[in-house]
């Protein structure tokens, strides 16, 4: 906070952002070229998806990681943001088409809700030209964010009375209620029922520069929030609600604030998401979206924005580039893959037990893995025709993701980064919690050597989540 290298860090940050912007600009141009180089379109698709899901995952992280509340209703917030944005930005052409359609559930009144109508009413007609679509899109996305934030406030209120998994279930219930209600007759004048609205402008959701702009904005705001007094208060609530309240933190206000912020950015992500997809429809907002964000959070590190972005990258990579998993392979190949996976698992388990000093080092599971793996290997090598024909692993990506999540949870529940964040100080190895020799000597002198010997911390720096204390009798 009071960094000595503020100037250096600021310059580095600016430089990083400039490089990022240049890169995204380049990607946009390359992908839009008449004869794009091979792979660039898919790359831009993955990149923009990463940015959009990143906005959503980082915002989910505010509730799940910073505030310590498991929220399972993020797709509901995204739905609200997405529908609001979609409705507000819909082109006149699409509106008239919907109005003419016999199946339309929307009325002229609801169809009149648009940013350009609003701007016209305000006398800002120059903003309703095709060239200023981006202004209207920005306004629509922000309004979508606000609509979601309002819903976030409503969902946040039960969090004042409920804790833990009960709250998780309530958020899940809210998410599903939002999704199921959107298609009912009550709301279909706004949502056009199951039909949704097609034909939204895609240049924002599909533009790497645009989506990364939103991602940077989200990360900026949420990181600022996390490292402000408000963020500290929220982390205090995560660590110990009772103690936080006893230290003067207003639980209700901060929890609702967290939900509002999170829902706001989820709403923005929803707006970008519908732009990415070019339309709004109910099945764009299924629970599996929240599941993917949960995987991203858990894999990367719940509570760490850096980790969440890493996790999102992983999820997006598997979702977008994982289709070789679903190609048609012979059964022998599958067995070979299985054998390799089992050997890796066995080796991983062994290393894990070795590093954690678990006894016995060679767990029975290792033998099972190796045994089954050997069997599979032998079958696949000795008799490739054991089971003739090919087998297509449709759905393998989803299976792979869920197995990955279980494995991460079992072996590294805190995720790749834990709660650590990337910072320039970290990059330059400036660690203020590591004492200089002088400080160490002073500390030892201050502390009764007799006592420190017994209460000493075995592994140097303790890992997060362990070491509840030497309070053996409590």
């Amino acid at each position, binding site marked *: 906070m009071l960094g000595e290298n503020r100037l250096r860090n600021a310059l580095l940050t600016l430089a990083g952002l400039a490089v990022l912007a240049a890169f995204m600009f380049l990607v946009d141009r390359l992908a839009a070229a008449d004869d794009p180089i091979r792979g660039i379109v898919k790359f831009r698709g993955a990149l923009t998806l990463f940015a959009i899901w990143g906005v959503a995952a980082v915002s989910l992280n505010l509730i799940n990681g910073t505030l310590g509340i498991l929220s399972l209703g993020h797709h509901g917030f995204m739905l609200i943001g997405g529908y609001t944005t979609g409705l507000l930005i819909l082109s006149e052409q699409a509106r008239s088409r919907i109005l003419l359609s016999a199946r339309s559930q929307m009325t002229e009144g609801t169809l009149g809700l648009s940013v350009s109508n609003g701007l016209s009413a305000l006398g800002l007609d120059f903003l309703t030209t095709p060239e200023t679509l981006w202004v209207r899109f920005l306004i629509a996305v922000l309004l979508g964010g606000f609509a979601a934030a309002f819903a976030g406030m409503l969902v946040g209120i039960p969090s004042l009375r409920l804790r833990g998994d009960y709250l998780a279930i309530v958020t899940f219930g809210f998410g599903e209620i939002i999704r199921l209600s959107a298609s009912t007759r009550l709301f279909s004048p706004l949502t056009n029922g199951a039909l949704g609205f097609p034909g939204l402008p895609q240049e924002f959701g599909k533009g790497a520069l645009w989506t990364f702009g939103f991602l940077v904005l989200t990360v900026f705001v949420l990181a600022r929030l996390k490292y402000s007094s408000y963020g500290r208060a929220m982390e205090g609530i995560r660590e110990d609600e009772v103690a936080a309240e006893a230290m003067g933190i207003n639980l209700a206000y901060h929890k609702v604030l967290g939900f509002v912020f999170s829902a706001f950015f989820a709403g923005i992500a929803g707006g970008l998401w519908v732009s990415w997809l070019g339309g709004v429809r109910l099945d764009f907002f299924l629970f599996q979206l929240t599941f993917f964000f949960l995987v991203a959070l858990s894999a990367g590190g719940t509570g760490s924005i850096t980790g969440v972005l890493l996790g999102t990258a992983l999820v997006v990579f598997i979702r977008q580039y994982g289709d070789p998993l679903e190609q048609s392979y012979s059964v022998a190949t599958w067995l070979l893959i299985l054998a390799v996976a089992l050997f890796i698992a066995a080796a991983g388990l062994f290393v894990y037990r070795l590093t954690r000093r678990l006894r016995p080092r060679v767990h029975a599971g290792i033998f099972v893995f190796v045994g089954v793996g050997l069997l599979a290997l032998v079958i696949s090598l000795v008799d490739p025709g054991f089971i003739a024909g090919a087998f297509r692993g449709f759905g393998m990506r989803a299976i792979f993701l869920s197995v990955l999540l279980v494995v991460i949870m079992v072996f590294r529940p805190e995720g790749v980064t834990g709660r650590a964040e990337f910072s320039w100080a970290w990059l330059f190895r400036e660690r203020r919690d590591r004492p200089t020799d002088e400080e160490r000597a002073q500390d030892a002198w*201050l502390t009764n050597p007799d006592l420190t010997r017994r209460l000493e911390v075995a592994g140097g720096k303790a890992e997060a989540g362990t070491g509840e204390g030497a309070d053996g009798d409590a």
Partner: protein
Amino acid sequence: MLEIRNVTKNFGGIQAIGDLSIDLNEGEIVAVIGPNGAGKTTLFNLITGVYRPDSGEVRFEGRSLVGLSPNRIVERGVARTFQNLRLFTNLSVLDNVLIPQHHRLRAIWPSAVLRTRGYRRKEMAMHDLALEKLSFFGPRLMSFRLYQPVSVLSYANRRRAEIARAMATGARLLLLDEPSAGMNPKETAEITQIIRRMRDEGGYTILLVEHKMNLVGEISDRVVVLDYGRKIAEGAYQDVVNDPKVVEAYLGRRAEEGTSGGKPDGAGGEA
């Protein structure tokens, strides 16, 4: 400063606190002692709003605290520590001492996100105050320890950090629940001095629950003895420990009465 008037609290038919009245004057150090289950921690919970008394009145500086939520009571100026340490374990020491200042931060969140000049100044002030409160405990929590998570601290350092955290709330009345638990004699002696300095230099009024009688004897202006939720004695340390009622309640019948110096053996334990 703090008036507790005829407070009663029942838990499922069992009386935890019965018709208890205690007064605290500004600048006093008052110790509450009593055997396990005597209701000492319950008393703290009643004052700080974790529980609501069934009857009776708790007033701080003339205004009632009954029915306020714990965070409102902190804003009034009453802070506490916990017997079994409820620090924010995975946060750094500095964060632990910054969080209790949050309720006094007069800055709305947009300014925090935008890092306005005013907000930065307030953040600096919070930082300075945190260092000031930590400096009560000498340099040991100051340098690199500031940035270490609480989970790697020693037990004694955690106790210290928790007291610093309570001080940082800006409270004028501190409720310390067994501040020396888990400390060795040397550290206990040190904390005794610190508590005294907190009163003398920091201007805090202190209500503490303690089992180590030498600590109680050394610093308390008054001692209140609880047994089964009722006050059985109150007064100066020497008078109280020689009160036969106290000896009987505290030490059990088998204890030989009148042990010299009134330092009872086998005192208490955890609640």
